[in-house]
């Protein structure tokens, strides 16, 4: 049987505007300005969206998400689930070559997946592929992935950017020589662009690959140059001055200005990032659900969106965003100080309490943390904001000691509910084993998540996910905040780029008119 997942998602499709510049005489070079240095050229060792965006033109996976978050085939021509959703079989595209001349086939798929799953290789995406039990090569162009337990989200996992296929020669070289640095030199995929150079802090360059297998998706510019520029104002100036063709992310503060700027096309679209305040349920003060609900009632989310996001956002009305498959809207916690006070008093905290709020030290996070602290102080909850570098913060959360309140952001890269909920709310995902840093343990939630994942009937799975979200929203293990919109700026003559709700920008189809 053949299950197609549908994603109800709006995304940012870039529509070409008529351009007066004649750039055809030059070799076409598109300049993309990104916010940070990529960390790796190895999709299996990448967890940040900047690196994923840079790798995008060079690598392909069996499937990918299109601009509406629907799954479309790339290196696979189609896929079939077994009836009990414990296996998925891919028919592979024939005649595909890697940039180094190696052939793509079922063996290569097995090699890639086995290599990333092997703990000895220490790749960052190992846990992402934990669902795989075995990879079976049926014939040269047919491969089956089996799982230990039924998993109806496998196709979504295989459409994720980290499920890209590396050249078998790169993997062989790494096996032969453990000192070989695949992060720096392993950028060999099957994509329309091939790797040229990566100079730290300066640029990463890819150029059109003439042996690309798919004429429909072939490169439309000669080169793409990715330049890291940390300062947002500088990125915007580069765009206005014509030094850059595509710039992201753009802070919301500049959105209103750029909306009226003729030199810039601005695209906004909802992301799948849910921003929240996590609460450590091991602390006495958060064990009463009324306290957690009071915190939800205490915060004016409209004010937060107006103030911190300049209107570019919506209130989180579930633990996952509307663009995630399986989303079900809940009645939001309206801002109601009286209700919050009453709930706190009923729970025995009429005079409030003290707490520490951990946040990442980036501007947006600090501003939101400040805002939350100010609002909670109105109820006598004395919040101290502590900002940490994100790596440090994650380590602290994983250690699970002394956690109180923390600001989090979660976006399921697979675009579906299981990866949106399980890492945050399943009882086996508490520290140090993933993202349930608030130690939320609820058997009903575990059971519903497992049943939904094992269900091969899409409607039944949707109903189960709706039920889970209702329980979680009511139970309020998080203070649900907002879902931001992503803002991307481009030159008016740019086309062919789309932004996924997951935050990755798909640039391989970049066109300059």
């Amino acid at each position: 049987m053949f299950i197609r997942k549908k994603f109800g998602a709006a995304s940012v499709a870039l529509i070409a505007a008529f351009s007066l510049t004649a750039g055809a005489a030059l070799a076409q070079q598109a300049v993309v300005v990104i916010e940070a240095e990529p960390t790796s050229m190895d999709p299996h060792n990448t967890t940040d969206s900047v690196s994923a965006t840079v790798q995008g033109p060079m690598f392909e996976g069996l499937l990918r998400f299109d601009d509406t978050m629907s799954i479309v085939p790339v290196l696979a021509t189609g896929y079939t689930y077994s009836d009990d959703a414990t296996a998925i079989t891919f028919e592979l595209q024939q005649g595909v070559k890697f940039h180094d001349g190696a052939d793509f086939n079922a063996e290569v798929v097995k090699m890639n997946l086995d290599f990333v799953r092997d703990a000895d290789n220490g790749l960052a995406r190992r846990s992402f592929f934990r669902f795989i039990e075995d990879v079976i090569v049926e014939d040269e162009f047919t491969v089956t992935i089996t799982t230990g337990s039924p998993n109806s989200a496998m196709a979504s996992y295989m459409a994720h950017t980290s499920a890209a296929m590396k050249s078998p020669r790169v993997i062989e070289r790494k096996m032969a020589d453990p000192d070989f640095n695949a992060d720096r030199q392993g950028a060999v995929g099957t994509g329309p662009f091939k790797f040229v150079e990566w100079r730290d802090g300066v640029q990463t360059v890819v150029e059109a690959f003439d042996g690309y297998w798919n004429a429909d998706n072939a490169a439309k510019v000669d080169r793409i140059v990715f330049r890291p520029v940390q300062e947002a104002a500088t990125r915007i100036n580069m765009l206005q001055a014509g030094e850059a063709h595509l710039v992201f992310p753009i802070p919301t503060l500049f959105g209103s200005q750029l909306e009226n700027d003729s030199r810039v096309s601005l695209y906004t679209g909802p992301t799948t990032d849910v921003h929240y305040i996590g609460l450590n349920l091991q602390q006495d003060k958060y064990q009463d659900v009324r306290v957690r609900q009071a915190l939800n009632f205490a915060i004016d989310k409209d004010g937060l969106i107006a103030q911190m996001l300049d209107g570019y956002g919506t209130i989180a009305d579930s633990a996952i965003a509307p663009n995630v498959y399986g989303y079900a809207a809940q009645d939001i916690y309206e801002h109601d100080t009286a209700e919050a006070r009453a709930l706190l008093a009923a729970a025995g905290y009429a005079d409030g309490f003290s707490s520490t709020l951990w946040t990442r030290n980036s501007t947006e996070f600090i501003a939101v943390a400040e805002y939350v602290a100010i609002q909670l102080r109105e109820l006598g909850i004395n919040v101290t904001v502590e900002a940490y570098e994100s790596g440090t913060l994650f380590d602290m959360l994983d250690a699970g000691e002394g956690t109180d309140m923390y600001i989090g952001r979660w976006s399921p890269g697979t675009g579906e509910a299981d990866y949106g909920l399980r890492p945050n709310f399943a009882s086996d995902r508490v520290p140090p084993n993933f993202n349930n840093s608030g130690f939320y343990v609820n058997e009903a939630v575990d059971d519903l998540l497992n049943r939904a994942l094992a269900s091969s009937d899409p409607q039944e799975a949707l109903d189960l996910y709706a039920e889970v979200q209702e329980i979680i929203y009511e139970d309020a293990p998080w203070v649900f905040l907002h879902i931001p919109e992503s803002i991307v700026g481009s030159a008016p003559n740019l086309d062919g780029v789309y932004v996924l709700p997951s935050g990755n920008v798909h640039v391989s189809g970049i066109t300059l008119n």
Partner: protein
Amino acid sequence: MMMHNQSPFITFLRKFLKQRLALIAFAVLVVIMGIALLAPWVAPYDPHRPVNLQYADRGIDITQLTRHNPVLEGLLSDGTSVAYGDLPQVTVRADNQRVVSARRTRSGLNITSLTAGYTPVYFTVGELTTAMDVYVRGEVPLGDIEPALVQLSIPQAQSALAVGEQVDLVLRGLRADGTELEGVHAINQFGAQYRPDEPLRVTWRSLDEGVTQVSSDGQLQLLAAGEGLVQARFGDITALAQFAVGGAVVEPRLVSLSLTEYETSLTDAYKHQRPSSLHFFGTDHQNRDIFSRVLHGTRDTLLIGFVSVAIGTLIGTVLGLLAGFYGGRIDNAITRVMDVLLAFPGILLAIAVIAFLGAGLINIIFAVAVFTVPVFVRIVRASTLSLKEMTYVEAARSIGVRDSVIIARHIFPGTLPVVLVYLTMRIGVAILIGAALSFLGLGGDITAPEWGSMLSAAKDNSSTVFHATFFPGLAIVITVLSFNIFGDGLRDALDPKLKE
């Protein structure tokens, strides 16, 4: 003239009073110190809370400014009205969701302003839609906006209708400013002006199963007996009309929606309010009153300046006296350590100290003190070296006065003028370094109303408005400049070579 009999203090005072600029600086400093002491009573607002939470105490109702609760009711075809609570599922949608957030809540309908702009908000029940115009006033002037068409109604047929008859349907439109448009032609004319590039027109359709048929200009044909139902649409706005054709008995239906108000004006008072009589320096990104924050910040800023320099001076003077008086190994040891400290640029040394101790106001004070010490050691040591050669010191020593007494009674007073001058000069520098450290986020509490951290927060969150950075910056400039000018004046007045 009794010049030579004047006490040195009077001489100093006369010299000092001659320097107009230094006097002005001194007056400014007195005011600044007054503010530091009285800030909690002088500041109009609480510096830690957003002003919108404080308006209520001052008689300004903020919910009126940012929230509107529309009152929606429905009308049945038999003329009875239906209250909001009895309507079926109402959906609310703002056309531009950046301008307002519009939604249903348990208590009713709710429109909350977000950012400055204009947007229609649509209310839909089944096949019916009405709208209202919402203006949000803020930093951006809105310009001229044509009131939109917000409601349509089809007056009900009075007489009984027989099969085969033809009826000319009448349509009434209502614009947000209350202007009525009578008839399809008038509404279409408005549609052509309202959006010249793609004119809007009224469209009609039958929603029943073959009872009626309606032409594009509103001609209704009654084809069969039963319940007829016709919808008129203009853009997003719709109205219904129900007909009992051929004597059929019909259940009254909802045929139009109405609001008590079709336009409302809200404000974007969430952050970055401009300087005005309400907020002299405007408000910051958390909507806190910058004027109150600057006043409150004076205390922390002066505290950093005074305390750190006082500690530094104390330690530096003691070490300088010891080094200068005893010379030899002690001198060598102290001087070498101070040379090492002096080799670092001041700010770098302070950052190193903070890195070692952790962030916080106390540690900033300590860091600034550490980098103040070596300078004082040097100047005090130099004056001690010359003072201990003085005859009166030799005299004191020859009658067997203890070293400690000689240092305290005979040498230390001689170093005072230099120390005092340097002290005032260093306070300015200390304030600057302190502000720089908290600007870099080393002050611990990022939300504290401290000038440096205010600047830092404004750089990150308010780069599009001038007042958030300008006023804290100005406060730093005025304070540091006053200390420096005052110090210069002191130096000149204490200089014995300077003639009166």
